[in-house]
């Protein structure tokens, strides 16, 4: 089976079932397609695309929050515990 599959795609040395399983696991974390009725029919490429988009969104959110936190940090007393918390977050 591996030889047959390797012929099609040399990069995948694992079974498609594994990929499907991981894709379904990934789907659980994606709020966009988590509630789809035909959850078993969501194509893997779509899931991967959604994952990429989600990660990009999260990156953006993290950047925004970091900026906001640093702004907050500048407004408060640097010695305060809150500042320490915020610094740990950034």
């Amino acid at each position: 089976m591996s030889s047959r599959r390797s012929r099609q795609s040399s990069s995948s040395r694992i079974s498609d079932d594994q990929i499907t399983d991981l894709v379904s696991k990934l789907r659980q974390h994606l709020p966009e397609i988590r509630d789809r009725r035909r959850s078993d029919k969501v194509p893997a490429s779509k899931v991967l695309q959604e994952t990429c988009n989600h990660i990009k969104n999260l990156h953006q959110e993290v950047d925004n929050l970091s900026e906001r936190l640093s702004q907050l940090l500048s407004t408060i007393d640097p010695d305060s515990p809150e500042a320490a918390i915020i610094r740990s977050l950034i």
Partner: protein
Amino acid sequence: MLVSFFSSFSSGAAAAVRAGDEIAELLWQNGPVVMQSQRSVKKSEPSGCDGYQLSAIQSQTQHQHQHQHQHQQQQQQQQQQQQQEREQEQQQQHLFMQEDEMASWLHYPLNDASFVADFCSDLLYPPPCANVNVAATAARASPVVAELRQQPPPKPPTPMAPPRRFENFGHFSRLNRPRVDESGPSNSSRAGNESTVVDSSGTPAVGPRSRVSEALHCDVSRGTVDGGAAALATSSADGGGREMGTCELTVTSSPGASSACAEPLPPRKSSSTPPPPAEDRKRKGIEIDPDADPDADECHSEDVELESADTKKPARGSTSSKRSRAAEVHNLSERRRRDRINEKMKALQELIPHCNKSDKASMLDEAIEYLKSLQMQVQMMSMGCGVVPMMFPGVHQYVPHMGMGIGMAMGMDMGMNRPILPFPNILSGSALPTPAAGAHLGPRFPMPTFHMPHVRAPDPSRISPTIQSNPLLSSLALQSQNQARVPNFIDPYQQYFGLRHMQLPLQQNQTPSGSSKPSTSKVGENLEKPPSG
């Protein structure tokens, strides 16, 4: 007077030739405009002359003798058609020009057999370019088609018959070689050259070109358009020399996009030539996929579908070939799907930091973990934004958020790169009412206050000012106070961490002052254990 007209042409052509190829290009750009306008029956004699000169220049650039010979032939034919109106004469002139052009650069493919195998794949590979090429060629071919129509009836059906024979590009390229060779030299007439071109280009271009031909409203010209496109593709496929020059000249006639397409043709052609002819049409879409954009991919897929649909039905009569075709289509669609998935995996891999896994499964695992950690991080940071306002006394409504965030922070994977690592230390400190062990626990003092206000409103107002002023002193002061509050302090935790409340009550029995440190770590461990376990 027509004779003088022609002679002026020839003299003008000669002058233009001496002037250089740039003029030829400029004139050439006028040429197709004129030819396109021919369909709309425009009288543009000067431009027609220019085009004619260009064709003369072109041929001279490539194949002087042939062109002159044909030129003379054209002159004779034009003289014969003196009775017709001026427009028709112009049309025919342009028709002849087209034939010259096609014949001139047709001969090169004939002489050089390597093109023949290539232009079938060339036709297909850049569909967006091909459309432009075809459009440009079709513009030129339409007058030729008109000429074809004038010819005896068997001619038009002839181009259609060979396409059926050559379903595969490779087939027709191999089969056409002798045919083209035969018909080329043997055909001295314009129509003969065109039919040759039509035959050689035949089937492969039928599919995608059908759209263009429809746009041109020339069904009969389908073969001709194909021939023109094939010849153009062939000439463009050839990487060097005069053919390229011709191709460039012809390409500039089109809106300029096709010239851009001409370049990509040779490299892709070389890579795509080997594949089995049966899959050529479909493979073009596949092979282009990794290279081209998604847009090009869609265009390609459309072309593939159109082409395969068009060529499949009329071409294949036997069921076995249909089945094999279906299997091929299936394989191709499967391959395309896999390619898309691989593409997305690569993109995902780039997003995930420190991902050096080549294995798909492990990469997906890492992606899942990274996604989880990112979500957690965002949650924590959004909660951290709520921490700042807590410096004000009485602002205890944030405590629940804080508690939850802390609980989740404790529970999450400590391996996170960024800001999470220091957090557990603070959190563990917060779990303890009095980190009286030392000053290093000072920064953590306020943490308990965040929790306490949740239970008792007056506490933070009392404690926070003390803490802010002198953490050490306040820690000592808090010790006694916190002893009483330990149960209260623990309660909010139990609230938030359902699993962990089992361990937390253990802390109540310990003396905060004496066992602050071990309990701190203990609480931290307890809080961390369940998630990791």
